[in-house]
């Protein structure tokens, strides 16, 4: 296997983007990434794009070809493949691109992610997202995504005594970070009271425990490490990659409050990178709901089960803390265009490791990403290093 580096990154602003179509979003992110890598389109060997549900959000399938076409790459017949794993589509797209370069099959590969969610109403969005769970045996029982994560929160709070304030602190910290991220959907600091007094969505989760509905796209470009300096002075090396599956339905997990696929994917990425938890300078985790960040910190091994609430309350997960979590603002503040999120995490990690994350910079050489599909049926982790 060859060593692989990220040589260029691009990301649209996330939010409710009435003026941008699905294809515009992708083209914008792709162009930014190419510009960042000083690369012209015809040099690309292959494209992967993570997308959960364009078929239902914008009634468009065959996304790979559409994107190649509108990015002006169909004239060169550049191959493009759509990758789907619900909210982990972006992370998985990155892993496919990584595999393609590492194997020697391709040299210059784009890993992208895109989702246009606001062309339909909230009710339709809720139903589309519910397809990430088991339609026949969870869908029919009236689940919603906030509801599934709320059941994790109920179980977790009961067993570990996590407090309402500790849970709310996840959102407060992520809004603090998001306020310093120009691409974030919400750029406003909030207080514990904002979270605790917001509308109940699925008890115990409230509006400010949830990631919002978002449009956005992100793209990154990978190359063999040995060629990376042709394109950039600051290549960011992929140190480890891990992916894992678990049961599609939450009720079939051995432990409701442990995402066993996070444990497995994290362990695989760490093993491949050959480093310890203490070597990680920050981690971009999949905080689709506040409880998801609590579980992620523990399941990735940054503290023992039951301790992430206290860690958060003490400020150890804030920038400057022991293990900064979601310096980008996470899904909570950046927004969560489901197929794009996993690539946005890589975008943020590269910005951080280059030292380009103005206002929210963590001083470190190593960062990690953690992207979850559904309630944890797919998890993809990557570890990156500044060479």
């Amino acid at each position, binding site marked *: 296997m060859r060593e692989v580096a990220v040589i260029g990154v691009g990301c649209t602003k996330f939010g409710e983007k009435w003026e941008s179509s699905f294809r515009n979003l992708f083209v914008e992110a792709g162009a930014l990434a190419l510009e960042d890598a000083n690369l012209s389109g015809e040099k690309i060997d292959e494209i992967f794009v993570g997308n959960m549900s364009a078929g239902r959000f914008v009634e468009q399938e065959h996304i790979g070809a559409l994107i190649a076409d509108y990015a002006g790459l169909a004239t060169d017949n550049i191959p493009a493949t759509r990758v789907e794993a619900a909210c982990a589509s972006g992370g998985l797209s990155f892993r496919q691109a990584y595999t393609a370069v590492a194997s020697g099959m391709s040299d210059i590969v784009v890993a992208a992610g895109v989702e246009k969610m606001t062309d339909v109403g909230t009710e339709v969005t809720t139903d589309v997202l519910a397809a990430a769970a088991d339609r026949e045996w969870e869908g029919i029982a009236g689940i*919603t995504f906030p509801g599934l994560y709320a059941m994790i929160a109920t179980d977790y709070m009961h067993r570990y005594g996590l407090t309402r304030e500790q849970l709310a602190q996840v959102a407060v910290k992520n809004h603090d970070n998001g306020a310093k991220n120009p691409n974030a959907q919400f750029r406003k600091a909030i207080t514990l009271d904002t979270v605790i007094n917001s509308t109940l969505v699925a*008890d115990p989760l409230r509006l400010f425990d949830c990631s919002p509905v978002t449009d956005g796209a992100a793209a990154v470009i990978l190359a063999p490490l040995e060629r990376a300096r042709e394109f950039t002075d600051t290549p960011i090396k992929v140190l480890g990659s891990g992916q894992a599956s678990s049961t599609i339905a939450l009720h079939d997990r051995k432990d409701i409050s442990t995402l066993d696929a996070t444990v497995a994917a994290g362990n695989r990425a760490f093993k491949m990178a050959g480093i310890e938890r203490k070597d990680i300078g920050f981690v971009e985790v999949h905080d689709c709901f506040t409880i998801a960040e609590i579980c992620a910190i523990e399941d990735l091994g940054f503290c023992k089960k039951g301790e992430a609430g206290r860690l958060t309350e003490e400020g150890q997960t804030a920038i400057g803390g022991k293990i900064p979590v979601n310096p980008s603002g996470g899904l909570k503040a950046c927004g969560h265009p489901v197929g794009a999120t996993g690539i946005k995490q890589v975008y943020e990690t590269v910005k951080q490791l280059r030292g380009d994350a103005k206002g929210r910079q963590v001083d470190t050489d190593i960062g990690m990403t953690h992207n979850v599909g559904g309630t944890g049926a797919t998890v993809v982790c990557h570890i990156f290093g500044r060479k």
Partner: protein
Amino acid sequence: MSVARFWRKQQNRYNLIGNQCTVCGKYFYPPRGFCPVCRRDGKIVEHQFKGTGKVVTFSIIRSSSGNFKLLTPYVLAIIELDEGSRLTTHLVCDIDKVYIGMPVKRVFRKLGEEGSSGAIFYGTKFVPA
């Protein structure tokens, strides 16, 4: 959910019929045609569940879609059946009454309907025992 798709699992949904693997003894509801423990060495037979169990975890859904929109707020719960397998259900009870460990039993209820004038689906829900 289309009529055909629902029909296929109707017996399971009406009567809480799932499976057991006679090799490892594990029970499966929702039904599985393949034992995830024994895989190809397993032997799957039908099993009629008793229909009693307890609440493992729950949430009160305040915002939903489709057939469940009119029911809000409602209790969503994961139930552990006495035989040991777990399922997700609408728990028909007062939203203030539910707690972890609450004993529950199955009931036959309307699950939803297809469109405004379409087929009505029935199946199993749970109530406090």
